[in-house]
């Protein structure tokens, strides 16, 4: 059996999504900007996709949902264009974000810092969430933007977006949220929450890779990131990726339809897995079940380094992920883990398991069995549990 428990990294394309995309490769392949029928025959499908996207996050017709190549582009665009539009001319000089953003936000902010912008990285508590009080205290008259994610990719923890939005509105500061891990997992409604910009990415909700979007409230100006042929009303140039847009629209529709399933069924399987793993001694999960998106568990397995755990799971056909240092190309330990910071050990013993609506009960039962066995094997190797006579002063 092969079990995919890394859905926060990417998801399987829903076969229904794939089926919608197929005609736009070899049959209706025209450039939608062309005058002839080859071009215009894709328009109905594109309009439908836009409808699906607007409905998915409850956007108003006055708002823009600009199609981008991925959420990384959306995040870069907001942060760098805010710099061009509000900071470069001397009006503002400050951006607020959190310590646990995805690198698409974090590294963009670091880049602006290197250009002289002041950036505040709000710390998080042991559950990995920022405090609204800290945010209030950090906002100044020269703050140009607050960028705080809706849900965290490692922990699954949901941030107090409604409150943050209200504070930003009250203080007159623009607010961007990276909602990549929220869309398709929990309701995202831009009428209930005051956000000026919101990023999302299709491949996290069973759509294709390499396509995403940036929601922009009610004509809010933002210099383009891609200049060129005036596509997307001049906001983002580049020939429209017709099949992917069609696929993203369908994926959004299906994901929103499945939100109840996500909340009940995916959540039930996630909780079953979590409860079973917590039966093993010395395991610790970050954050409460209620505060998390329904599909994610970040669990610390005492005495077992994350990559070693992934190795054993992979040997048994299970794909998961770890925030640990060793598994990344660079040796840095995971900044989210460091930020949570309760115990440094956590940074190296984390195991992230993320489900989707395609995960089955049989798969979860199999995973529980495999993880239990891996814990036994690897703890037997681990120096954390190793014998030493009384005279030995442990240095570990």
């Amino acid at each position, binding site marked *: 059996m092969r079990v995919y428990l890394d859905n926060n990294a990417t998801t399987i394309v829903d076969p229904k999504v794939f089926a919608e995309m197929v005609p736009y490769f070899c049959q209706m392949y025209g450039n939608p900007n062309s005058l002839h029928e080859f071009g215009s025959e894709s328009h109905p499908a594109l309009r439908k996709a836009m409808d699906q996207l607007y409905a998915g996050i409850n956007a108003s017709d006055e708002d823009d949902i600009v199609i981008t190549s991925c959420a990384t582009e959306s995040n870069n665009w907001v942060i760098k264009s805010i710099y061009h539009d509000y900071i470069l001319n001397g009006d503002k000089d400050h951006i607020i974000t959190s310590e646990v953003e995805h690198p698409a936000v974090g590294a963009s902010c670091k880049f602006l810092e290197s250009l002289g912008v002041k950036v505040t990285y709000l710390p998080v508590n042991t559950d990995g969430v920022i405090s609204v009080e800290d945010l209030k205290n950090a906002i100044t008259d020269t703050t140009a933007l607050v960028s705080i994610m809706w849900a965290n990719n490692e922990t699954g923890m949901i941030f107090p977006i409604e409150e943050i939005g209200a504070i930003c509105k009250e203080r007159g500061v623009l607010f961007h949220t990276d909602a990549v891990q929220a869309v398709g997992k929990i309701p995202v409604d831009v009428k209930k929450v005051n956000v000026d910009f919101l990023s999302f990415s299709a491949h996290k909700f069973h759509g294709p890779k390499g396509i995403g979007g940036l929601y922009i409230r009610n004509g809010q100006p933002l210099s383009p990131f891609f200049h060129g042929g005036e596509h997307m009303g001049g906001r983002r140039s580049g020939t429209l990726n017709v099949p992917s847009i069609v696929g993203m629209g369908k994926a959004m529709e299906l994901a929103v339809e499945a939100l109840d399933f996500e909340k009940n069924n995916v959540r039930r399987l996630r909780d079953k897995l979590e409860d079973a793993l917590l039966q093993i001694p010395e395991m610790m999960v970050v954050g409460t079940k209620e505060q998390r998106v329904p599909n994610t568990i970040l669990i610390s397995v005492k005495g077992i*380094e994350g990559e*070693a755990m992934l190795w054993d799971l992979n040997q048994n056909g299970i794909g998961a992920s770890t925030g640990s240092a*060793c598994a990344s190309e660079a040796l840095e*330990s995971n900044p989210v883990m460091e930020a949570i910071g309760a115990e440094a050990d956590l940074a190296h013993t984390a195991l992230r398991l993320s489900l989707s609506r395609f995960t089955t009960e049989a798969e979860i039962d199999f995973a529980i069995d495999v993880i239990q066995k891996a814990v036994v094997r690897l703890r037997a190797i*681990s120096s*954390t549990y190793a014998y030493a006579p009384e005279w030995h002063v442990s*240095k*570990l």
Partner: protein
Amino acid sequence: MAKNSLIGGSIWEEYSQKVQDLMNHPQNMGELTEEDAKNMGGKLIIADFGAESCGDAVRLYWIVDEATEVIKAAKFKSFGCGTAIASSDTMAELCIGKTVSEAVKITNIDVEKAMRDTPDVPAVPPQKMHCSVMAYDVIKAAAASYKGVDAASFEDDIIVCECARVSLGTIKEVIKINNLKTVEEITNYTKAGAFCKSCIKPGGHEAREYYLVDILRDTRAEMEHDHLLAISNSKIEGSNTVNFDDLTIVKKFQQIEAVIDENIRPMLVMDGGNLEILDIKEGGDGMSDVYIRYLGACSGCASSSTGTLFAIEAVLQEKLSKNIRILPV
């Protein structure tokens, strides 16, 4: 950056088969107890290195025969990724049957080489080299413990990287043993500098007493100095302590002169000619270009640009290095 680095690979693809097999079935994993030591008639030695909070840790057990100092048994327990487990396992294997003094000579390179499938393909990717360094460090700790060296003398060692708990001694040794040239390599081999980065260069999170950039520069200078000393101590002729290609230009000149004096000049002089060395240049291709001028009778002789030239080149190549090229001016 180039074609092969654009689509990042999985580091697991770079683990040798041996590393993978050891990860799945470590051979020397386990514990040794006082009981085992008594049964084997040896002394139980336990040494720890690393820390869970730094991402890897290892405990090494030895049973040493006190009469012969031979390590009769070695086992390990390790917190770490697959390569840490495989490296610890290999390290324990290499210790068995050696004396304690022999075991301290095992370097991280020995451990890494022992895990290769083929002699010239590394067993692990660069950023995993620190696992084999940890194996090397724990042997030293075990030896110190056996020799009764106060464990405190290790703790006194200056810690350069607080995050990864790497000492000045380890960093300098690893630079020398592995001929490291960049700070990134130091990080790959020791983990120093992988976390808060304060220890890399001044101006980080917090000020430190030692920085990797300075240690690297000073250690490289020390190595260069030692190298020059080795060269000047080596005898001009028949020297085999230092490779001709590594010599300074001055030393190369002296050695070439010596060979020419002994093997070539006598023949030329007999024919009423001679030659002088004008210059030596190191070509970018690793060749040493020796510019010569024929004197006296040789200068007009037709064979001086062909037969004689080949003869001179052949003698120098045989005596000194095949990377010598003779260019008559």
